[in-house]
């Protein structure tokens, strides 16, 4: 069995965000940046820019008029949304280009990423969280640890896979049962290494146990992604190789003041939103 440190060393084998993606992330979080600067950064990769434009014009956003220029997309959808699109394209490609087993279905896992991203954004919208775009990227990356685990130790992934599907257990329960370093910690180390913001590191680390970060300034983000993840796992069991009954954190519900009525409203809206997210699934 590999120790977590040895595993982290092997994370190098995973593709890391290239220069373009890194530039996009830094421009999108620069308060002085203009739309044109962000557009310039994306245009450095022609295939990325066309994919971003395609997503911007997708049914998910449903913009009433067609956007043909990146800077316009940035103005209309916002800097952070366009950054999310770029990040989605990168995550998608890294997910499908990396080596790994067939123990986990990459397509299903990607669908889980997109659905939790959409779910987090939708829940934020319903709860009145002002920067819902931040929720999208956090939801998108929350389970990146599972990709890492698959690359680092296909053997472990296979073991987990057999337990969760056969015994109707959650991914987390299987990890504990097998005494495998959790995908949350591995994922957190990975995004930290990629130089992504703290909030993403904390979300990846705490999305199964949001109580860890109750005192953090990112507590709400972690809690929202947690709820979206649990709901996605219940509605689409197995997408992230997790079966059984996921545990919904009371601390998260309390922190978000999430009442059953609101939760039901979220689930209704979530169902509508995922139907519009098809273009994210096939890039």
């Amino acid at each position: 069995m590999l120790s977590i440190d040895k595993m982290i060393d092997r994370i190098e084998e995973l593709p890391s965000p290239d220069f373009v993606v890194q530039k996009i992330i830094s421009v999108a979080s620069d308060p002085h940046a203009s739309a044109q600067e962000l557009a310039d950064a994306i245009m450095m990769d022609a295939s990325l820019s066309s994919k971003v434009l395609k997503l911007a014009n997708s049914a998910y956003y449903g913009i009433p008029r067609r956007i043909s220029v990146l800077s316009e997309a940035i103005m209309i959808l916002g800097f952070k949304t366009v950054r999310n699109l770029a990040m989605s394209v990168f995550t998608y490609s890294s997910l499908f280009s990396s080596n790994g087993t067939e123990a986990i279905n990459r397509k299903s896992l990607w669908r889980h990423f997109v659905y939790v991203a959409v779910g987090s954004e939708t829940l934020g919208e319903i709860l009145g969280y002002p920067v819902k775009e931040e929720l999208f990227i956090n939801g998108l990356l929350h389970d990146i640890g599972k990709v890492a685990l698959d690359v680092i130790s296909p053997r472990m992934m296979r073991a987990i896979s057999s337990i969760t599907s056969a015994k109707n257990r959650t991914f987390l329960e299987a990890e504990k049962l097998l005494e495998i370093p959790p995908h949350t910690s591995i994922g957190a180390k990975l995004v930290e290494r990629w130089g992504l913001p703290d909030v993403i590191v904390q979300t990846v680390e705490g999305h199964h146990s949001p109580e860890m970060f109750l005192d953090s300034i990112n507590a709400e983000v972690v809690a929202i992604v947690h709820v979206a993840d649990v709901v996605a796992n219940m509605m689409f069991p197995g997408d992230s190789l997790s079966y059984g009954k996921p545990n919904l954190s009371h601390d998260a519900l309390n922190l978000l003041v999430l009442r059953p009525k609101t939760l039901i409203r979220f689930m209704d809206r979530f169902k509508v939103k995922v139907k519009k997210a098809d273009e994210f699934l096939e890039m």
Partner: protein
Amino acid sequence: MAETIGSTEKIVNLFSSFIMELNNVHSTEEVFSALIRIMRKTVNVNWMAILDAERKPIKIYPNSSELNIGRFSELIEWALDNKTHSFYPVGEEIVGFLPMIKGGDVLGIILIGLSQEPRVEEIDALRVFSFLSSTVSENVRLLEEVVEKNRLVEETMKYLHSILDTFPEMVIVVSQEGEIVYMNRRFVEEGDVEGLKDEALKIARQVIETKVRRVGEYEKEGQYYSIVAEPLQYQNTYQAVTTIMNVTSTKELERLKQLDRMKTEFVANISHELRTPLAAIKAYSETVLDSLKELDENTLKDFMETIYRESMHLENLLDELLDFSRMERKALKLERRDVDLVEVVKDAVDSMREYAKSNGVKLEVVLPEGSLKANVDPSRMRQVLLNLISNGIKYSKKDEGESYVKVVLKDEGEKVQIIVEDNGIGIPEDKLDKIFEKFYRVDSSLTYEISGTGLGLAIVKEIVELHGGRIWVESEEGKGSKFYVEIPLKVE
């Protein structure tokens, strides 16, 4: 012209001034004015429009501008549907769509026309400002609603209060804890009568306990109050709505009506009483006059005796009437002398023996030994005794066992007591306190079964009281009565 942001300090300043302005707003209108000011400080604003949830403009900057909002309707709907803040290039301008959303509900949308592309930090600031102002404006609106509701509630309360205050009745509401939780003005003004509140509270508590309507009465210094308490369920507790009404005038009217009725009865009664002896005198004297020659001495004597007896009776009746009229004019006077009461009583009893005998009533007398000197009006005392004794005989049980009237004179040291006891028909309990009232007769009817003016006992009472004494009665219906007269011995 707005300065470019560019430093944390400037952002902090913008936020500080916006928050300060929001602290002082009292209406949604003021919130949006503050919002427009802060937006203009943040970016170069050509125009602004704030639309409500029905997409109707509620605030426009500049005031005079005529904006064609209609051309944005598609984008407005998109922004609201996606709850997304976005900026569109429209011609030379960049138009911002900032939905106002609270708890998932759309409150409206802010449209803002900018002359140049906003930067990331500017967009963020505009977003936060619109978030803040929608939250504050919604709260202010709710507050306005609450204030308006409160005003309405207060007005309704005032209206109801003024209605309750015009009630001729005093109204109080008593809580389950027995406290007065409401009183109308009538109660405040007229309810301060000793004992009245306690009586009302007592009845109210019974109502709260039994949850059944209750009625009571209270009397103080000649004022009569009727108390009615109704149970009222209020917020899972029981209260008592208690109405108090001064019914003195109603009672007084009732009393006067009764007095009037009694006077009418009295007139009829007294005419009858006067006619009976008069008719006898007339008939006998006519017979004597018509048959003077045929009548023998014995028959004549018999006739003349009847005439004499009936005139005496007539005289008595007239005396009684005169006494009564004196009494009414407060002109009844005593002629006090030092007399021996034993003699007075013995004399009065003796004079009634014949009457008692003819009615089959045994007359007994119990006197103290020796004499009993008192300073009284002897003829008035005799009148009292005759009246009580004749009443005893008059109201004896006819055709039933052995009737008696017993007169007892008792020396009680400072005072004397005269008791006139009989085993007659007695007096019903509810009439006991009325028999000393003028015109009152227990049978109180025009049946004339028993003769009498109904004035006797009223006069007796007056005489006793003029002597500084008192009179009372103990009686049981069907068993007999016992009249007590107490006179202080005032020997000079």
